[in-house]
């Protein structure tokens, strides 16, 4: 008689191991372990995202005309303009604000991305690194 599969813990009968003779309890225990590990990883990622979202980032120009703060979502939490900023030409104010905004928003995105990455299980981090050259 052929042997279909020699699973650990499987019931033997007449030297034949049947596919249906898997140790269901062992399989369930292993699946539960995987589920628990995934739930734990999910909790760690959620906590990392939550912490990153409340982190504050700040930029200002050298002349003290504008200061901008943002959180990790990223959303602006505050803009402060010096009165002299209102004397700028609209194009210059546009350039100043656009530069500062992209700086603070980029910093916030990078920090949140790094925090989430660090919270991921090692196998997933390795795969992300392989695929994205992170």
């Amino acid at each position, binding site marked *: 008689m052929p042997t279909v599969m020699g699973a650990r813990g499987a019931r033997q009968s007449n030297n034949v191991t049947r596919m249906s003779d898997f140790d269901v309890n062992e399989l369930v225990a292993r699946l539960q372990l995987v589920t628990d590990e995934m739930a734990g990883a999910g909790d760690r990622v959620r906590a990392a995202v939550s912490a990153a979202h409340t982190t504050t980032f700040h930029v200002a120009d050298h002349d003290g005309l504008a200061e901008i703060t943002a959180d990790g979502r990223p*959303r602006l*939490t505050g803009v*402060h*303009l010096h009165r002299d900023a*209102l*004397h700028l030409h609209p194009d210059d*104010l*546009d350039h100043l604000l*656009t530069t500062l905004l992209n700086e603070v*928003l980029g910093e916030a995105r990078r920090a949140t991305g790094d925090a989430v990455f660090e919270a991921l299980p090692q196998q997933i981090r390795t795969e992300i690194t392989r695929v994205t050259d992170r």
Partner: protein
Amino acid sequence: MTNPDQSMDDLRRAIDDYPRRLAETTARAHAAARATVTARDESGQVTVTASGQGDILSVRVTGHALHDGDPHTLATRITTTVNAALSQAEATLAEATTGTLPDDTETTARLDAFEQRIDAAINRLDRLLDD
């Protein structure tokens, strides 16, 4: 009752179709990232343009707001308008990536069908071994 062979075919088609769905979604995401969104505050004094991936492209403030406004009010308007533009950009990108995967109901049904197919195959093997 679900036909196991039909269910297996459905699952195989879904798997075979995945690269096409992924390519389409990637193309939509790239298009959305290149697109621009614009937000304007209620007074019309501040207009912010952003790319779909959330880069700020311009912050236009009217001459009236610069000459007659006060810095605090203008800063508040800028904050609100930039955040509105960022929300629009995120919504645009999210919309573009919707529909990559079958929804949960569809996925669950296919996995259930796959499980039934495996059970049927195991039963067949057992019967063959009993003969």
